[in-house]
């Protein structure tokens, strides 16, 4: 990969600079889990970033080959655990499409609402950690305060706070909690009043802007070439929202704008995510009053057998485009399952956009790429 930086002009003095290696991770506060980065550094300037993956590889794709379709769903929320609901939904949609099963409208709407709540929860966590990575520790707690409300909603309805397992092929595990609508309606104005607080604490801060503006610039061509998706790609002006281009569940009936920016730097990625939170609130608001009555699932066979063939379903998680590719031979187990994780593609461009920056830039850029390591390692 070519580096976009100018070599420092070599002076005739005896002081020679030497590149050295540094191991960032697998235990490091900024790598959010067990990502290991092998950095080649000249002083403070980064010459090469080489991610070393696999510290949390659990071979989920191989496990899927031995499990039934109902069981696979439960493995997917261990991928990107912050978008667990959306991951579950992807597998369920893929299986339902393969079976040509039409789920009730009620299921579609509830899935979409929960999906958008998941997105907000993920983005609030990201926002807190983003602040922490650039050194503003307070944002962490502000982010978690609002995420807690969403987690409580999840807990009430799904019984779990992180790995929900609420979706099953054919619908939902159970009906929503009677309090669900009320709680969500409470949450929307609460979060609307708290989001400007986020801007006051971090977005408008001059140091924060200096740290992120013009750092880690990704052009639109590179974004497409590296297979970037989600807010990372949208910040470069590449319209790639799966919710817009390939709407699933109830997303075809809601109005929302795709958050786009054209700068492509870390600040743009930050702003896109903030804008996405506003949009998610809009989506939820459009749907929450119109949850249709009806069944919360359609009956499927106890043993689901998919017809022979290839099935692909893409959804938009908080991190980008998540794809489920199932090759079926007509048995009760899939022949091959591939999860297209947004994180791996997004991570692959890290070297491209951080070379030439400082160590501090790397941390800020990595925070805006927003990786979840289990999603990358699978």
């Amino acid at each position, binding site marked *: 990969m070519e580096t976009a930086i100018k070599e420092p002009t070599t002076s005739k003095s005896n002081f020679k600079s030497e590149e050295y290696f*540094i191991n960032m991770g697998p235990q490091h506060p900024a790598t959010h889990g067990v990502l290991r980065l092998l950095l080649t550094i000249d002083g403070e300037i980064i010459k090469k970033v080489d991610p070393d993956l696999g510290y949390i590889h659990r071979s989920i794709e191989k496990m899927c080959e031995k499990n039934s379709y109902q069981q696979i769903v439960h493995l997917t929320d261990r991928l990107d655990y912050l978008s667990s609901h959306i991951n579950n939904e992807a597998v369920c949609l893929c299986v339902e499409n393969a079976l040509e099963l039409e789920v009730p409208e009620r299921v579609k709407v509830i899935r979409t609402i929960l999906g958008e709540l998941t997105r907000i929860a993920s983005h609030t966590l990201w926002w807190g950690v983003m602040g922490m990575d650039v*050194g*503003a520790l307070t944002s962490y707690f502000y982010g978690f305060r609002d995420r807690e409300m969403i987690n409580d909603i999840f807990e009430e309805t799904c019984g779990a706070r992180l790995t929900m397992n609420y979706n099953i092929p054919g619908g939902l595990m159970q009906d929503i909690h009677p309090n669900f609508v009320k709680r969500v309606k409470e949450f929307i104005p609460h979060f609307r009043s708290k989001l400007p607080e986020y801007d006051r604490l971090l977005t408008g801060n001059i140091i924060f802007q200096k740290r992120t503006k013009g750092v880690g610039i990704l052009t639109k061509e590179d974004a497409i070439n590296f297979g970037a998706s989600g807010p990372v790609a949208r910040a470069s002006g590449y319209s790639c929202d799966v919710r817009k281009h390939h709407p699933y569940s109830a997303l075809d009936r809601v109005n929302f704008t795709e958050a786009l920016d054209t700068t492509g730097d870390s600040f743009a990625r930050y702003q896109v995510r903030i804008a996405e939170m506003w949009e998610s609130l809009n989506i939820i608001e459009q749907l929450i009053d119109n949850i249709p009555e009806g069944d919360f699932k359609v009956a499927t066979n106890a043993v689901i057998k998919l017809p022979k063939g290839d099935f692909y379903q893409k959804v938009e998680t908080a991190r980008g485009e998540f794809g489920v590719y199932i090759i079926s031979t007509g048995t009760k187990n899939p022949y091959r399952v591939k999860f297209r994780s947004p994180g791996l593609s997004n991570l692959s461009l890290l070297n491209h956009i951080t070379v030439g920056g400082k*160590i501090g830039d790397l941390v800020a850029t990595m925070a805006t790429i927003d990786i979840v390591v289990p999603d990358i390692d699978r």
Partner: protein
Amino acid sequence: MNSISHIIDWFINTEVLNMAMIALIYLTVFAVLGLFLVLLERKVAAWFQLRIGPNRVGYLGLFQTIADALKLVSKELTGTEKADKFLYNLAPYFVIVTSLMALAVFPFTKDLQAFDINIGIFFLIAISSIGVIGILLGGWSSNNKFALIGAMRSGVQTVSYELSVGLSLLTMVILTGSLQLSEIIEVQKGGWLIVQGHIPAIIAFMIYMISGTAETNRAPFDMVEAESELGAGYHTEYSGMKFAYFFLAEFINMFIIAAIATTVFFGGWLSPFGITESLPWMGLFWFLAKTFVLVFLMMWFRWTFPRLRIDQLLTLEWKYLLPINLVNLVLMAVIVWLNLTIQI
């Protein structure tokens, strides 16, 4: 034999014993003060971050940091195999001793001052620049790349910001005409220096607070530790009490920076408008009150601002603070020359 009795005479006559006693008292008081500053920081942080903070050990958690210190004392001292053992062990003492030494010259009240030398400010600036040697030694000798990067950043940062601290204090020295801290306070009986020197004094104060925060290596200038970048920076390889020395020194340094600002800008132990002039012991209260307001200001910085990048840090110093400071110095000289100061 004669020489020994000479030495004994010298001991008695020069009150070395007295000084040792004072030093012991200072050490105890300020070690405890350092611990309570840590507690204050945690309480302030909790307040900023919608948390409760430590509240279990003792009444309102007052003994939390003492319990922490006891834990650190009892911890095993681990270190790297290939460290330069001598320098590695020496470094924390450099840092803690220099920060405690600086405390000697502060006039807490009119009479409570351990060491009133006529070059007080100069002494403070000189002492505070020794601390960085400890950080450099610690980072370099622990044979860890993260620690080394942290130490190098610290060197760059402290050397740069020392200039601004020195120059902003020098601006005020033009006004006082003396380096002796007790005299600086005497001068302020006609109005605190920040009032006397008005515009240039306020500029000097702002520069002083920025560069003072940078000199204590606190956020938003905590490049040296930068936990999201370097783990723990220069003290990555330290544990137990040696780590505690670094940690405590940071808080005592914060107190020192605030105390210098109190003395030089806000009239030290002088009460506002002389309201408690008849009660000299109230001077201690005023001194500490002013200092803690400034300490709180520095904590406020830390829990609000993100961290700067190393090159932005240097840009701020060399391209903005230093030129402003130099112009400010001339401005102050002109104001003093034309007698434009405000006297109450």
